[in-house]
């Protein structure tokens, strides 16, 4: 320590009557206190670096590489990769967004009454019903999706019933299926599979939000001569909104990247962007930078849509 600094310290010590030694001990404590937050934060920061920043960097840097599988890929900052993949696969990107949007809407239509019923009308059956909503998770996702191939088989009773009720010609008239007596390997079967697989993700947050609503608010609505619909619109819905926004996001975001349903229940015309990415990354496409560029595009696209949605839905609690 230099002489002037020592003098300063001594003067400081004299000023409030403590010894130099005490002052030094005090500084050490203060220094330790200053580093403590970083030590405590370290696990979180390491986690973030390892599982977020590094993979992010990896995927972004890979997306601007060039080369091929046999000679290797080199980082050449070729941003044109993004233009390439967009012009080649924008159809599949748009299709993925369409399917996941449809899936989210159908999930919401099914989940709202279901969650409402469980939260307010199920009484002592509440827990059992919630267990039933979650029960499918005990079986593998792939097996459940494959099961739909059996359920919707051309010779199965579901398709026979749909034929008898003239639903199949209606669907093919709308362009959701391709023939009058089958539904598999069409956009319809893909969206069906997605709705089935993602429904619990929509129901759970909505149920949690609704369950917290005080039933006396409903009674208050009735006391004030509000109709059942008005009570739902003015009381239940706004209070359940955070759950609705959460549930739709939990459905939409993974649905955009899902390709299991499209591969198993779809046909040549239902290829989604997840399949393209899989083929480019580890499959027959073999162009890893293109796969990475598509992943980045999809990520940014989903983020923009999500932010716009949250802004519009106006629930800051989510973000």
């Amino acid at each position, binding site marked *: 320590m230099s002489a002037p600094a020592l003098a300063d310290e001594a003067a400081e010590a004299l000023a409030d009557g403590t010894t130099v030694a005490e002052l030094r001990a005090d500084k050490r404590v203060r220094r330790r206190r200053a580093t403590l937050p970083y030590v405590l934060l370290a696990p979180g920061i390491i986690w973030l670096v390892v599982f977020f920043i590094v993979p992010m960097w990896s995927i972004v840097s890979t997306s601007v590489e060039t080369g091929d599988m046999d000679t290797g890929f080199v980082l050449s900052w070729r941003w044109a990769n993004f233009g390439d993949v967009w012009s080649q696969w924008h159809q599949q990107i748009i299709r993925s967004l369409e399917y996941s949007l449809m899936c989210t809407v159908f999930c919401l239509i099914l989940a709202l009454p279901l969650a409402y019923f469980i939260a307010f009308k199920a009484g002592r059956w509440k827990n059992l019903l919630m267990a039933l909503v979650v029960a499918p998770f005990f079986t593998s996702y792939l097996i459940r999706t494959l099961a739909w191939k059996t359920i919707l088989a051309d010779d199965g009773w579901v398709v026979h019933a749909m034929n008898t009720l003239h639903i199949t010609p209606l669907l093919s008239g709308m362009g959701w299926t391709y023939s009058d007596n089958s539904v598999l*390997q069409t956009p319809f079967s893909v969206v069906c599979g997605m709705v089935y697989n993602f429904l619990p993700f929509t129901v759970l947050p909505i149920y949690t939000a609704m369950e917290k609503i005080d039933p006396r608010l409903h009674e208050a609505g009735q006391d004030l001569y509000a109709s059942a619909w008005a009570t739902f619109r003015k009381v239940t819905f706004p209070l359940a909104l955070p759950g609705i926004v959460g549930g739709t996001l939990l459905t939409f975001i993974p649905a955009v990247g899902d390709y299991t349903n499209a591969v198993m229940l779809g046909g*040549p015309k239902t290829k989604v962007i997840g399949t393209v990415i899989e083929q480019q990354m580890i499959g027959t496409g073999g162009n890893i930078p293109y796969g990475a560029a598509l992943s980045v595009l999809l990520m940014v696209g989903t983020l923009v849509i999500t932010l716009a949605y949250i802004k519009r839905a106006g629930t800051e609690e989510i973000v």
Partner: protein
Amino acid sequence: MNDISRDREQFLEAAARYPEAFKRQLGSASRRGFLAAGVGLGAAGLLGACATKTAHSSAGSAGSGSGSSSAAPSEGKEGADKSDTEKIVNFSNWVSYIDVDPNDKNKRPTLDNFKAETGITVDYTEDVNSNDDFFAKIHQQLAAGQDTGRDLMVLSDWMIGKLRQMGYLEPLNLANIPNFKDLLPDTANPAYDPNRKHTVPWALGFTLMGVNLKSAGLTKDQAQQLSIKDMMTDAKYKGKVGYFAEMEDGVGFGLLATGADPAKFTDDQFNAAVAYIQKARDNNQIRQFTGNDYINDLTNGNYAMCMAYSGDIAQIDDPNIVWVVPTEGMLWFTDNMCIPAMASHKTNAEKFMNYMLEPKVGAALDDYISYIPSMQGADTAMKTIDPNALQNQLIFPDAATKAKAHEFQNLDLKTLDKYVSQFKDVTG
């Protein structure tokens, strides 16, 4: 930067001089690449990305000159052969392609007998669904000069040609395969692998049509009159047709339907065939493009008819499912056993190849899977195993049946890749 290039130079030199130490060097090189990429504790996806990065330097460092840049195809690098200490052979094959004990589906007599004879266990995996998909699965490891974990695999003729030209197949040591001389003369020297330096046939067969009579609304006799054109254009079967996604099969049928010869066709004829298939797809005639996973959809009636491999249909024990030779003709294919570069049990794999070439073993296998044997004496052996099989056109086809089958033109690597990617635009 200088450090890295100097490192690389030294590495290249060392690898060329001490091929034995190459594998260890490769290990440390990939670790270095790992750190250099600033990864540290990266996620699984990253590991994959790094593997391709190191692939670059290691493939070059081996001095093999593999890939499109070299003029003559090189041979697949040999891995350290652990056959003496590890009595095992890792075998990747297609589904429904081996005999199964009728009383216990987990037992495969051919493999069990091999173990009884040689003490070598065959670790059998049915993970080949299509040549393309399987190639994609192992391409990265092959390009990186790594062991794929497989010692033996069965792939079709054109894929053998591709792998051989890319230098990913190990040449066979015929000292371990004395039965090699018993190959039938017409299978001993195919264009995709001259003199079979790298392969031994597993089975030969036909690509034809499988028909679900009930779903198609046909009798067995009516079904025999079906053509590829019926399958691709008749509105009765709209949305109930399965079609192979693999270029050779798919385009082969397209060529037959448009009146071209799959064994000798021009670019224009290829384009016409692809357009023909594209049209059937756009009209929703084709329900799905498949690999070897078409059988369930055919048996449960989702397909009225589909492209099929002869033995698969013959193995289905159901009078409602029949095989049909389309009026335009059908395709020949040969599936071959081969050893990928860097395999760690090469000698064991060769012993297995030799075993499969014994007439009684080959005949028993083909009697079960209903494909065509490729070794001399299989017919004699079949007399004691199953005399009825001698009349089976799928196992011992006569001249008339053979006349309906077409070979597929042998293509150079560049044309093959072009055609494959062109057809992929149709299959999605």
